[in-house]
């Protein structure tokens, strides 16, 4: 009866939207990232809230603060869902509302609906290896702006506007109560349009189109997964494959080389007394970065599983008891 959405979506969204300061890399990055599938005909749905903020950021590789921004914070409220088409094929989505604010200086925060994301998660392999259970996944995702927000107002814009196509390979191994999950993702990002008719990166561009570099992401998690509790530690990395550094005392730009490495913890708890209801929560901290804020993020959410089938197990894989 676990709802799979939390870890995955949250990861992704938090990572994407909230944590990264300058970098609101669109969600596409961290799609579902856990080794749990919704069972056939089950639909898990719920709201998630997150708060992320930073005072220090990396201007290129150099860390600094900015008294004209103070603490830059991002709040996100999202609706997320996961539907089991089959036990081995799930569809997931998220739609976040994002609001940003700077505690100092004069710049106005932004808010609005950010990007709609959709993933297809497929578990083609599930087998015993040694004493544990091994499963492998392929996850494809697509995201696109769900409103006409402005990308070119970093660090206060709510997103980067690129349409992202992501492809993730993931493997999960569970031995007793403990498990490890690792994944690698490639994100293809479309060009974006900005409101300006020219801009300077490391050279002049006489166009309103911006070439957004692709990105790669790695995620590793390990922890306890048994019964109605999942508790895990994560480390992940987002690396922009290209892009340029913010120059001295300049503003950030959507096609900057935004990188971040974060560590964090997630907990998911299913309430035994309320069948189908689960709580999620967690947080993470950016330990290294480039052209992004050093963000601390916390989040929480509630999910409920709707059962469109005769009563059956709710989640599958990898072998839970």
């Amino acid at each position: 009866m676990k709802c799979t959405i939390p870890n995955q979506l949250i990861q992704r969204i938090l990572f994407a939207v909230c944590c990264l300061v300058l970098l609101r890399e669109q969600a596409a990055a961290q799609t579902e990232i856990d080794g749990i599938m919704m069972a056939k005909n089950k639909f898990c749905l719920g709201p998630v809230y997150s708060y992320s903020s930073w005072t220090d950021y990396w201007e290129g590789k150099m860390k600094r603060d900015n008294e004209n921004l103070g603490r830059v914070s991002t709040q996100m409220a999202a609706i997320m869902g996961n539907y089991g088409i089959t036990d081995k094929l799930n569809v997931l989505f998220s739609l976040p509302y994002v609001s940003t604010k700077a505690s100092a200086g004069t710049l106005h925060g932004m808010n609005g609906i950010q990007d709609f994301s959709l993933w297809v998660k497929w578990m083609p392999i599930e087998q015993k290896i040694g004493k544990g259970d091994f499963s492998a996944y392929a996850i494809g995702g697509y995201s696109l702006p769900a409103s006409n927000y402005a990308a070119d107002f970093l660090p206060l814009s709510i997103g980067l506007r690129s349409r992202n196509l992501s492809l993730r390979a993931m493997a999960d191994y569970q031995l007793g109560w403990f498990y490890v999950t690792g994944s690698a993702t490639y994100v293809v990002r479309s060009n974006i349009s900005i409101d300006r008719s020219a801009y300077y990166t490391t050279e002049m561009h006489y166009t309103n189109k911006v070439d957004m570099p692709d990105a790669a992401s790695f995620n590793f998690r390990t922890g306890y997964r048994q019964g109605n509790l999942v508790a895990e530690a994560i480390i992940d990395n987002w690396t922009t494959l290209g892009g340029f550094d913010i120059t001295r005392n300049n503003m950030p730009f959507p096609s900057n080389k935004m990188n971040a490495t974060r560590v964090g913890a997630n907990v998911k708890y299913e309430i035994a007394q309320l069948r189908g209801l689960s709580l999620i929560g967690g947080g993470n901290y950016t330990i290294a970065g480039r052209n992004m804020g050093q963000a601390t993020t916390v989040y929480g959410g509630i999910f409920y599983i709707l059962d469109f089938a005769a009563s059956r197990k709710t989640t599958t894989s990898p072998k839970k008891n």
Partner: protein
Amino acid sequence: MKKLLFVTTTIVAVAIALPIACSKDVKGRTDDLPALQPAKTDIEGGTWKPVLLAAANEFSVPVPSATTTPDYIAQINEIKTWQADLTSDEKAIVKYWSAGAILRWNEILRELVAKHNLPPYQNADGTYPAPNANNPLAYPFFPFANPPYAARAYAYVSAAQYDALVAAWHYKKLYNRQAPYKVDATVQVLVPQTDLPSYPSEDAVVVGAAVEMLKLLFPGDQDFIQGKAEEHKRARLIAGANVRSDIEAGEALGKAVAQKFVTRARGDRAGTAGGNATLWKKLETDCEARGEKPWYSLETPKRPPMLPVFGVVKPFLFDSLTAVSLRPGPPPLTGSEKMKHETNEIYEYVNNPTRERLRIVHFWADGAGTYTPPGHWDAIAAEDFITKNYSEIRWARNMALLNMSLMDAAIVCWDTKYYYFNPRPTQLDPKIKTLTGIPNFPAYISGHSTFSGAAAAILSHLVPERASAYQAMASEASMSRMYGGIHYRADCEVGLEVGKKIGNYAAERAKTDGAGN
């Protein structure tokens, strides 16, 4: 395990194919322009009124060698050698530069401005370092190409190029040496043919004037600038458009004329426009003595005001007394009901931003890291001039008229700003959070509005069929500063009016400079 291998292979294959399949090349609007093919040669251009030159022949250009001499024939052979084995890179540079010399150097200048339009980071003690022209590569890099600096740079480069081309046209007509492909029919020509005499080369004149001016204005970017200059001159040889002596004579003439502008620039008082701590304090106390609330910097730590003495820089289109006479009457008193009303209006705008208004704010923001409002108007003008098939001298003349207007607009606007030293809306009401950065200088009158009023006025004279479009753009640029929360209505409305008066000086000049329209 086989299945795992299959899945992995598929994923890897797709991951590799995806980025290749999705081509994301972003082309600039002027990357693939056709070659400039002037509708007329403007062969009488040597009689047009120059800006600083006493006469078109103030600087001499040696008599060229006849096209029958061994010297000339050797130069023809140099072209043929280039053309015997053209690489794709060489063809690409010919294509790039053939779009127009004035256009390309204006784009390069806009690029330099955007690169250098960054306010210096503060010192540890909360003061700010000033860029040093004698040490441009040490942080803070020289220059900080803010809007007044940029306006002046665009004006000097444009005006120097125009005067140098007036001189060049004089000698072209005088010596009447034809282009190499007219002398020797076996020389290929990779650009449109012209009846304009090729000695001295107009392209090299533009290069020489630009390089000489930019040594003063962007002394830390010489490798970039010289690289462009060499490429431009080479493109003309490769194209069969000029022999080496056309190029050499043109470049020397361009440099000589530009020297006159360099001398003027060194004495135009811009070098001391930053003022000093005593003067900054005096602006504040003088304002208080008038019973008004003085402007203060809204940055932390407080940054000294941007170029408070730029208002006394020597203008191009009129004398300094006229500049002072163009200063408008005062803004609403800071304590008045009128000012309160205007402040409330701005609060309403920033608290109810529509997406369209935000687009307008960002489209016209032209703030840090951009080519500034004068550069934006150059871009607007250039994209219209491209469609007009002007000769290089007419391109230069029109750009000079525009950029002299913009520089003089900066002078009158900055004089006004520091004369009244009026606070920004956010200073009077800290609840006003802005949709773009607040410039670090007083509000009244709006720089964007003054620049835009001036640009729209001169451009409406030069390209009358676009007049209503220019007026609409100027209004939108002006309003963008209210929508963004950084100017009151009075700043914008009066700024447009003052700008228009300045642009009209350029239009009057244009009516009598001999170029016609």
